[in-house]
């Protein structure tokens, strides 16, 4: 049974955070493998299980002229490796109850496994993971099948007004930047990707010096190190890819209207936002919280949902990425209310950038963010996500320990200044999908 929140995920979102009086940050151990891969590890013995994830800078932003290439490469790793076909690989994992996982977003592409720590089970899971990562065969049949499935997924996106809107938003905000293109590919790119492209992409990007590894669970450091050695054995050191280009500011405001036969209009408004290791990270994160990042306590929800009943879901957020991820506000509303809702989004943003949060809003936000910090570290999977973020984006290893202090330091003048410097209300992209535009 799934609980669904309506938020789109673009890499790691600003973390919902929390914090209490007790700083219960997990103790992070770190080392670098011989081939140059960074490892972060947290030992947690409360459950007989362990999560391992290897993250590569090999996602959509590395697609080049072929959007979808990174995702397809990532998806093909477990479709044939070390002479075993997809069925045999799946049986290896599943016969010991292990859960293989993989995904490719805009910044991060990863593979990983969750397994019981029973030695025999764990060894099977880790050895199979190593095969998938280091010895993929990229069989032609699997390539053709998975490519065909990506085409079906692409068609499915075209029947979703929110997917259409998100795609148009990224295209308008990022123009020539690699973040502009959909990670699932385009009609054109999916016709042009070849098996040779896949193999070349794999060889260039799935290399040790382009990887970070994170491990959380009931193993000791020695066992964790041995697991890492097994996984990386045979993976060339390679080299890190060139840094992504910086994201330029928008030269002008732009409005994109796309007719679509939906009852609601889907509206996105935004522009380039901030980097994951941005100097204004804490200021902008706190700034967004009372505006549109805190659900029911936010201005956008109060104005648009609570006072007027115009939308079920309305929010704003910064999605911090390697280079500047987007700042975006979004909502969906009945087509004939499109103009009213859009005006409100814009006027709320104008007001907020001009004056920032009031004193109470800031205090409430800081206490919510700091007070809820323990909630974001209350499971292995959440800790794993943090470790991956810290390692992948080269954040300081004391990121978690200093988090609360960094949040508490933010004051109203910081926020006003950051908003003034970083939000340009005259240069936004507005996307409206539906028939109300």
């Amino acid at each position: 049974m799934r609980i669904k929140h309506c938020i789109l995920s673009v890499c790691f979102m600003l973390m919902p955070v929390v914090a209490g009086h007790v700083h219960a940050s997990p103790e992070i151990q770190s080392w670098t493998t011989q081939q140059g891969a960074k490892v972060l590890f947290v030992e947690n013995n409360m459950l007989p299980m362990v999560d391992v994830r290897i993250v590569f800078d090999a996602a959509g932003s590395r697609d080049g002229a072929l959007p979808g290439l990174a995702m397809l490469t990532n998806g093909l790793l477990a479709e044939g490796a070390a002479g075993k076909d997809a069925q045999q690989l799946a049986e290896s994992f599943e016969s010991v109850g292990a859960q293989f996982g993989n995904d490719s977003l805009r910044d991060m592409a990863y593979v990983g496994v969750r397994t019981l720590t029973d030695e025999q089970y764990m060894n099977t899971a880790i050895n199979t993971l190593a095969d998938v990562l280091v010895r993929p065969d990229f069989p032609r049949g699997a390539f053709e099948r998975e490519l065909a499935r990506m085409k079906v997924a692409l068609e499915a996106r075209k029947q979703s007004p929110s997917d259409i809107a998100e795609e148009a938003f990224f295209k308008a905000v990022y123009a020539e930047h690699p973040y502009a293109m959909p990670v699932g590919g385009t009609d054109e790119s999916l016709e042009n990707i070849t098996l040779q492209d896949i193999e070349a992409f794999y060889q260039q990007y799935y290399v040790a010096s382009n990887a970070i590894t994170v491990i959380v669970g009931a193993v000791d450091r020695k066992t964790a190190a041995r697991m890492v050695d097994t996984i990386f054995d045979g993976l060339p050191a390679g080299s890190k890819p060139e840094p992504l280009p910086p994201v330029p500011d928008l030269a002008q405001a732009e409005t994109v209207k796309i007719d679509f036969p939906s009852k609601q209009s889907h509206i996105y408004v935004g522009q380039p936002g901030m980097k994951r290791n941005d100097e204004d990270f804490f200021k902008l994160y706190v700034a967004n919280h009372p505006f549109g990042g805190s659900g029911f306590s936010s201005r956008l929800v109060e104005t648009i949902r609570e006072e007027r009943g115009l939308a079920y879901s309305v929010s704003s957020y910064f999605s911090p990425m390697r280079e500047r991820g987007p700042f975006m506000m979004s909502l969906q509303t009945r087509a004939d209310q499109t103009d009213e809702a859009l005006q409100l989004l814009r006027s709320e943003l104008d007001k907020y950038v001009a004056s920032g949060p009031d004193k109470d809003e800031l205090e409430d936000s800081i206490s919510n963010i700091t007070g809820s910090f323990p909630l974001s570290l209350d499971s292995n999977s959440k800790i794993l996500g943090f470790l991956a973020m810290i390692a992948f984006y080269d954040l300081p290893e004391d990121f978690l320990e200093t988090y609360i202090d960094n949040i508490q330091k933010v004051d109203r003048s910081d926020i006003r200044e950051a908003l003034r410097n970083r939000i340009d209300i005259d240069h936004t992209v507005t996307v409206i999908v539906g028939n109300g535009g």
Partner: protein
Amino acid sequence: MRIFISLIVLATLVIGLILFVFIAEDQPLDELAETGIQSMELKNGMKVIVQENRRAPVLVTQVWYKVGGSYEHDGITGISHVLEHMMFKGTEDTPAGKFSEIIAAHGGKENAFTSKDYTAYFQRISNDHLELCLSLEADRMRNLLLGEDDFLKEVEVVKEERRLRTDDKPTALTYERFNAVAFVNNPYRKPIIGWMEDLDTMKIDDLREWYQTWYAPNNATLVVVGDVKAKQVFALAKEYFGPLKPAEIPQLKPRKEVQQHGIKRVQVKVPAKVPFLVMGYKVPVLNTTENSDDVYALELLSGLLDGGNSSRFSKNLVRGSQIASSVGAGYSLYALHDSLFTISALPSNGISMDDLEAAIIAQITALQDELPTEDELARVKAQVVASSVFEQDSSFYQAMKIGIMETVGLGWQTKDEYVDRINAVTAEQVQRVARKYFVEDHLTVAELIPQSTEVKLSTSGNMNAGEAHAN
């Protein structure tokens, strides 16, 4: 944000309406050292269940009510869910919006969800704020304001939610019509979020009556999981919920589905790009079965078809014949009424819906004709055993399981039987339930037939897209 769980196919849920009798004293009901779960019942009939868990200095509290979509009758569909939204609109002591504000200021996260057989409210928060959560929940259990102005705005929010989740989502709309056709008199026929016309004509008085009828301590269960002491939870529960008066809870009519006498088909023609197929067989659940072996065998069978990438659907339909682009099976044992074993699939490009359906039926027939291998069974069981460890990583999920089982009338202890019961399923039992329940005359098939997504220019600007035509 108020969430609305649309267990789409997993249609389901559960349970039982029992008229709670008074219990003379607050009594401890049960204690199971193994799982660390302790429970008690307050004098007013409210159940309190606690699972101590010291993994992090946090806790989750959930208050579960025995009411949801399956409790509703025609004309007021969606009322349980609208009421869930209204539960955030304040009491005399805690005005509208204040609940969320207080929880947020204390570093908490809160929300609620409505399903077929339950409505639940929860907070996740650091472990020193238990009392705050319980006092606020106790207040809104009996003292909700339900002002008309608030309602008129909130029902518009819910209509937007319906447009977002169902009307503009071709697959969700197909599921909705599938359920509406599959059942004749079983209440799972109705969408949890309600028909739009029922939302249009809903009145504040309807909600007041619904609230008075179902929101009472003897129709509720408090579940707390986290770094707390059960004793402390019991004491606080007694302090805050104890004084609330119980109500007479109506006995639900059974509405047991009439016998189906032949396959049913429905088409949904709306703007879309990818065809979609949903198939469902009538099946019992733990609450309704005469033989619980059948139910666990069906559960294991769903693992054979769809449990992981080595399962039959992936192996034979996505990889082997490549007829399906994706295909899955859905079944939930923990419902109040008889349910559906569903299969949903997207065809590969160029594959007809007839061929897709035939290929799925062939997989069903194979289960009826041949025993599954021991390897296959062992693999599903290994995954079940491992998952029972993995799922303990989430306190919220632990609390959900307790809440669901208690609220559908099975009792939380049922969750501890799961692994053993699955492990006991034999190949012969799988074959037997496949033959017994997967009968063509008890099948419903829904098909999404994509229509153009081009917008036709119309002078009125009034869109009719999203309308479905059910046969």
